């Protein structure tokens, strides 16, 4: 018996010894854990990167703060954060695009209230974000009629969102002008298919069905069909995220249904297969696709460059063809001024000094010289020259930078969404400079298109509870809806369309619409209504 006891005791001691070093902290030092998105860029170790070392040296060491980056996969960040927050293991600074999740934790009282912390330790944060932007992170949680600061909205420096791209080389072969409205665009698609310009596998028009937001991609085309003579501002806000229910949208989906049956669409658009889409895009099968305005020329995945390798002379160019006839405008939605939501999670074990350290770190990040370093890296390695305005040029693509200097500007310097050089003009100029010189004119044109007849995305300044409760269910219904109305027999289109809309309404969309309408009436809304008289 004694032997067993002593054996168990020995084991217990051994186990506790293993965990001791984890608690050992140097005198007076505190550890600050910061979430960092991981995009699986080859050779780039997020948890031990140049930016971390730079921040540790210039911010951490003088303040006796040990910085630690916690890698979280970019495309599942919302799910990972949900789990971490639920289990109380989230890093001290987290960031997410999932606004619903943030709202939930505000009501759970699981976040640090930032008003006093900002006043005391965040003068540079306040200066960089500004009062208007900070309001995005405010909510009245205690019900006293005054909104408190619960998160820091990152500042979005470039709000352009829509990039529609068409094959310049195909237009040339067809001897067609760039389409300017739906009719001429449809003509292009038909001609491209008839001539099989991409070979046997020609797919004139590609769009994606993202499971997390199934209509994200098609809404850009369908909004051109909305009849704004029949849409009030109130409806516009009430049906935010549910544009398929606005007058006129039905004709847009009927148009897609027609295209589908003519074989002009990507047949497997609703069978999630990203790799097939990517390879088709790079092999030049597509005649049209729609993503972010800089998508074809990005340095980390350059579709244009890859496609040129496969097809000589293949060329993407931005196209402005989704003209809304009721307004006579080519509508493009742009982001609101806020980007990521930056939160400081609070559990019963959280210490205030860590929250203070977190605010100090973000404040340090907001100082122009530090932000410049974190976003641009080192001259001669990450970029080769600087313009007279101090903007880095000849920016090296990720594979040309040695591993120990690989970096990701936006993910580590999370408080700014986009590169910041001190003024809007400089920022805009810098945007193009970050791309391969050969493609810069195309990029500039694409961004200009994205700002044409722009309307700012709608959001609400009070939480929409129905969105939290039913949002995911409604999104999944929208996916079903899109799949059904695009692929169904044209003779049954009307019946299927109406039934699918009803289905979405029953799943919680009607609650969401009601609550959004109430929020609009209470004046708690943001964003613009494109149908408003000028």
């Amino acid at each position, binding site marked *: 018996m004694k032997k067993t006891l002593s054996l168990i005791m020995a084991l217990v001691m051994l186990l506790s010894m293993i965990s001791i070093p984890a608690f050992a902290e140097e005198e007076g030092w505190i550890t600050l854990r910061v979430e960092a998105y991981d995009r699986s860029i080859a050779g780039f170790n997020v948890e031990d990167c140049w930016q971390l070392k730079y921040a540790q040296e210039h911010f951490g060491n003088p303040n006796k703060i040990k910085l630690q980056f916690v890698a979280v996969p970019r495309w599942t960040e919302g799910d990972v954060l*949900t789990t971490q927050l639920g289990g109380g293991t989230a890093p001290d600074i987290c960031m997410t695009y999932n606004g619903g999740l943030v709202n*939930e934790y505000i009501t759970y009282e699981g976040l640090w209230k930032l008003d006093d912390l900002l006043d005391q330790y965040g003068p540079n944060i306040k200066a960089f974000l500004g009062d208007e932007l900070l309001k995005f992170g405010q909510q009245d949680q205690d019900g006293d009629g005054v909104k408190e600061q619960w998160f820091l909205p990152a500042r979005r420096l470039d709000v352009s969102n829509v990039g529609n791209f068409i094959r310049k080389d195909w237009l040339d072969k067809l001897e067609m002008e760039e389409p300017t409205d739906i009719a001429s665009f449809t003509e292009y698609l038909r001609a491209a298919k008839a001539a099989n310009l991409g070979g046997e596998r020609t797919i004139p028009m590609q769009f994606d069905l993202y499971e997390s937001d*199934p209509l994200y991609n098609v809404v850009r085309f369908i909004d051109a069909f909305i009849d704004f003579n029949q849409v009030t501002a109130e409806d516009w806000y009430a049906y935010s995220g549910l544009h398929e229910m606005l007058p006129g949208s039905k004709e847009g989906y009927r148009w897609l249904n027609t295209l589908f049956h003519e074989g002009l669409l990507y047949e*497997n658009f609703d*069978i999630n297969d990203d790799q097939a889409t990517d390879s088709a895009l790079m092999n030049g099968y597509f005649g049209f696709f729609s993503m972010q305005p800089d998508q074809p020329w990005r340095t980390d995945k350059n579709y244009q460059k890859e496609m040129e390798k496969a097809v000589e002379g293949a060329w993407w160019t931005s196209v402005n063809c989704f003209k809304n006839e009721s307004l006579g405008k080519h509508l493009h939605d742009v982001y609101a001024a806020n980007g990521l939501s930056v939160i400081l999670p609070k559990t019963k074990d959280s210490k205030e000094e860590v929250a203070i350290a977190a605010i100090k770190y973000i404040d340090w990040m907001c100082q122009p010289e530090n932000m410049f370093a974190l976003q641009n890296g080192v001259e001669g390695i990450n970029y080769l020259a600087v313009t007279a305005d101090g903007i880095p040029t000849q920016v090296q693509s990720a594979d040309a930078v040695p591993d120990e200097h690989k970096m990701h500007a936006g993910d580590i310097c999370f408080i700014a969404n986009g590169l910041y050089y001190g003024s809007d003009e400089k920022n805009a100029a810098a945007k193009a400079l970050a791309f391969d010189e050969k493609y810069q004119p195309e990029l500039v044109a694409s961004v200009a298109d994205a700002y044409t007849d722009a309307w700012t995305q709608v959001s609400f300044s009070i939480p929409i509870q129905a969105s*939290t409760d039913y949002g*995911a269910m409604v999104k999944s219904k929208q996916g*079903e809806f899109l*799949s059904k109305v695009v692929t169904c027999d044209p003779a049954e289109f009307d019946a299927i369309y109406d039934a699918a809309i009803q289905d979405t309404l029953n799943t919680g969309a009607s609650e969401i619409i009601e609550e959004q309408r109430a929020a609009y009436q209470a004046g708690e809304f943001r964003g613009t209504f494109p149908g408003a008289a000028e």
Partner: protein
Amino acid sequence: MTDLRRARRGVMYSILQNWRLYVMLLLPVAFYIIFCYKPMIGVGIAFTKYNPVKGMWASRWVGFDNFKFVMKMPDFPVALGNTLLLNFMGLIAGFPVPIILAIMLNEVRSIKVKKLSQTLLYLPHFLSWVIIGGMVLQIFAPTTGVVNATLLKWGWIDQNVPFLTEGWPWRITYTLVGVWQSMGWGTILYLSAITGINMELFEAAKIDGANKLQQIWHVTLPGIRSTIVVLLILNVGQMMNISFDRPYIMGNTRVQNYCDVLSTFVYRAGITNSKFDRATAIGLFQSVVGLIMVGTANFVTKRLGEDGIW
């Protein structure tokens, strides 16, 4: 000395006598207490308006509100029906296959061939569903998938076979892929049960003039009958449970109404928006129904004269 004291001493005595065995038992018992029984307290979450920051005890008690909320959602009955149907199809198609396979493997004479085919059959079990999902797309996708592309090219069909794009064909694809994935692994228990059959019975049958098929029917199958029954009861108990990865990965938006099952429903209704209370409520519902099913299956088998599991 009273009987009671003697009995008590008897228990202590036998423990002391066999203390090594009891020490060996400590770890598994600890495992079940820590990982199976202690977390059960957490089912209480299903009856609260759960606040993960404050914990279960500080959250407000709401009775059956979470259950009502979830079950009123129009997707719930669909997901429930799909779960039962897919599991039932899996049971009908998948349960006999490992038995047949095990008997066939048992009859293979050459050890080398037997080992090789066993290894090949086990292999899919170790593949992640993400990989299998990718393979299924490569093979069964419309137009671009190997099967459809080949058949179209040969002119055997003029329209895609909707393996993944229509309800019933998708269900069948789902079921058969599942059978393929798990059949090899399922043979292990049966093979060991077959090994346990007394060889004298086979010899006796042979002397009585039984051929191979008759031996299988009259000796092998009765020999593994109890194993079959136990596994069947356990499988019936799993009817309400469905893994998340397999339907999530094999499903797609076009067959959403057919591939949405309880686990994917819970993910949407509870996990993605941090409503852990609702997710727990569905989990508890599944467990209770599962328990009732196991109990019923056990009762029925006992009535039929078999041993059952308790």
